[in-house]
């Protein structure tokens, strides 16, 4: 079966225009909250610079920081595991549960486990996983992946959630009140927290200097799960390391403000040691990260702290929805991370952008996201992963733009055609014209205009 590409999925999303408008406006509202929050900090740009520099240093010394983190974590009684890929990561989690005879686990948000498709793997092995973040629980009940890394069910209307909860949690039919639905989830998940012996969480930051990990949530679900379980498994990509504890100040000031406009998440929990008599395991996962580290042009993508600001601001994301990216991490950042995992499968994603640069401007760690999108396009075409139409168009464009004569002829031809026979270009076979009005065709090119007007001025 052919996997639908971004444009095809965006088409499906755009069938319901009202929903697209609503999605667009909701995310833009979050972007505006981010702006308001950031503007209250006069040193905001310095914070971004500092965060980016700390992450640069981290990537440049990652080998030693990983060793330092491991040493300090072990000293604190934490058990460390290393996984080269998603498969090994999933197997480690499964083994840890099997050793304890556990077949039910509660999980808080972890994009890494989405990347590794852990839930599916565990379910195939007879282990029930319940996602405890409200948004994640909602998409889990709907049997969908999250559509946003911070707001997993941002694509869903409350009426649809009401329907899901009626079916699965027994809330009254037709009730779509967020307060009532959240309360129902609270009761249902409290029972889950109290009865699960294993809890899995993600990791926001891991401090090399102290061997501790920091997990941020608004709901308190990571803490509820971890503190009530016999075994807490925390999964992290190796790039989540930061050198020192004091660096947390920079990242915690930036993270929530960039994500939702909050001054900080409700809970920023620091786990340094397991509870008495309980176990804390940390799985350090590579899954392509060392490869990305070696790609000079793309390694900065590993600085990402998963705030989602680039998605909220992206005109393409807002109007195409997270699912159109067919990757665990959607939006602009997902589009520069995914081709590293599989160039063929994700060849369409770097093209799902207008290259407007808004993503780079809001990124709290100053990743040059739109430059990387542009660079991925070059790589993908060179490696032969672009679609044939795109390749021909780009090659023709390159030839035309590199020859002044051809450029002039092409310009003139386009103006004439658009003036006298617009249907040849503006028809339903030209994707560029779908849902787009073009400006009026000028009488002459700038070059022709300049020639005449320079003469007039002389």
């Amino acid at each position, binding site marked *: 079966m052919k996997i639908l590409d971004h444009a095809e999925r965006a088409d499906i999303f755009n069938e319901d225009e009202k929903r697209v408008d609503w999605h667009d406006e909701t995310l833009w509202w979050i972007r505006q909250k981010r702006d308001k929050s950031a503007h209250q900090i006069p040193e905001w740009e310095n914070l971004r610079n500092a965060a980016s*520099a700390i992450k640069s240093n981290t990537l440049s010394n990652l080998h030693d920081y*990983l060793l330092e983190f491991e040493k300090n974590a072990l000293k604190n009684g934490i058990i460390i595991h290393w996984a080269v890929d998603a498969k090994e990561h999933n197997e480690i989690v499964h083994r840890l549960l099997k050793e304890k005879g556990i077949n039910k686990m509660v999980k808080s948000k972890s994009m890494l486990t989405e990347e590794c498709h852990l839930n599916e793997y565990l379910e195939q092995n007879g282990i029930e996983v319940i996602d405890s973040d409200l948004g994640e629980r909602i998409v889990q009940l709907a049997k969908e992946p999250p559509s946003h890394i911070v707001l997993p069910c*941002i694509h869903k209307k409350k009426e649809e959630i009401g329907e899901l909860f009626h079916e699965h949690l027994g809330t009254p039919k037709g009730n779509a009140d967020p307060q009532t639905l959240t309360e129902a989830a609270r009761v249902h998940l409290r029972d889950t927290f109290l009865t699960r012996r294993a809890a899995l969480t993600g990791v926001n930051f891991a401090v090399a200097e102290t061997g501790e990990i920091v997990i941020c949530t*608004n709901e308190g679900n990571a803490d509820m799960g971890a503190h009530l379980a016999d075994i807490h498994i925390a999964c992290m990509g190796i790039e989540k390391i930061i050198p020192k*504890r004091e*660096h947390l*100040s920079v990242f915690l000031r930036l993270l929530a403000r960039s994500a939702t406009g909050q001054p900080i998440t409700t809970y920023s929990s620091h786990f340094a040691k397991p*509870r008495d008599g309980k176990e804390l395991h940390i799985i350090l996962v590579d899954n392509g990260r060392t490869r990305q580290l070696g790609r000079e042009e793309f390694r900065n993508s590993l600085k990402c702290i998963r705030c989602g600001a680039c998605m909220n601001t992206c005109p393409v994301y807002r109007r195409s929805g997270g699912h159109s990216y067919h990757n665990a991490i959607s939006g602009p950042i997902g589009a520069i991370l995914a081709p590293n995992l599989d160039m063929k499968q994700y060849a369409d994603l770097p093209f799902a952008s207008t290259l407007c640069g808004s993503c780079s401007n809001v990124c709290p760690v100053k990743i040059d996201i739109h430059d990387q999108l542009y660079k991925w396009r070059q790589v993908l075409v060179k490696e032969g992963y672009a679609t044939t139409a795109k390749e021909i168009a780009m090659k023709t464009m390159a030839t035309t733009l590199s020859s002044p004569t051809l450029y002039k002829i092409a310009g003139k031809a386009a103006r004439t055609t658009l003036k006298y026979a617009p249907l040849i270009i503006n028809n339903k076979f030209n994707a560029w014209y779908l849902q787009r009005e073009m400006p009026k065709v000028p009488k002459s090119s700038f070059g022709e205009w300049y020639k005449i007007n320079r003469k007039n001025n002389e």
Partner: protein
Amino acid sequence: MNSRDQILAAVKANQPELTLLPQLDSFFQGQETALIEKFTQVLTGIGGKVTVVADTTEIISLLKANYSLDQIRVISPLSTMQEIAINAIDNRHPHELQNVELAILPAHFAVAENGACWLSEAMLLDRVLPFITQHLILIVNKIDILPTMHHAYEKIGNEHYGYGTFIAGPSKTADIEQSLVLGAHGARSLWVFLI
């Protein structure tokens, strides 16, 4: 080669030339002085409640006026709260805290810029207590309000804790159509008393 060595070798081979860490000194300069006002404004803005009190007696009378204390389970490690709270719990069974209605905990310090209070394991009785309780009361000394997170981590320094957390407001979610709902999985309300 095992996975650990394989990953470390790949990192070593692919990591770029060493760059320097930035100085953070400048972030300590020119920060807010009206710390109580700032803290109160920010925490109120994110759903918490702040009251300045003269002493713990005043806290007790305010709690008595707002909760039917004799009908609910109240837990606190503070000896000053003995009149209204119990300080003994069974750490082997944190699940047993599920019916706690009110937890009264001391915070080491608070942060004005984001309304967060820092708690560490030594003062919690149990890690799950500030989360599992229906309502959370935190007590902070007025003089322990710091301007920013930089000051916060300076204060924490290299303290050895097993667990510590910043708490800023009640548990909340906006996952359903971005409608803010207080009381997701953790405490439904947060009331901070400044002494």
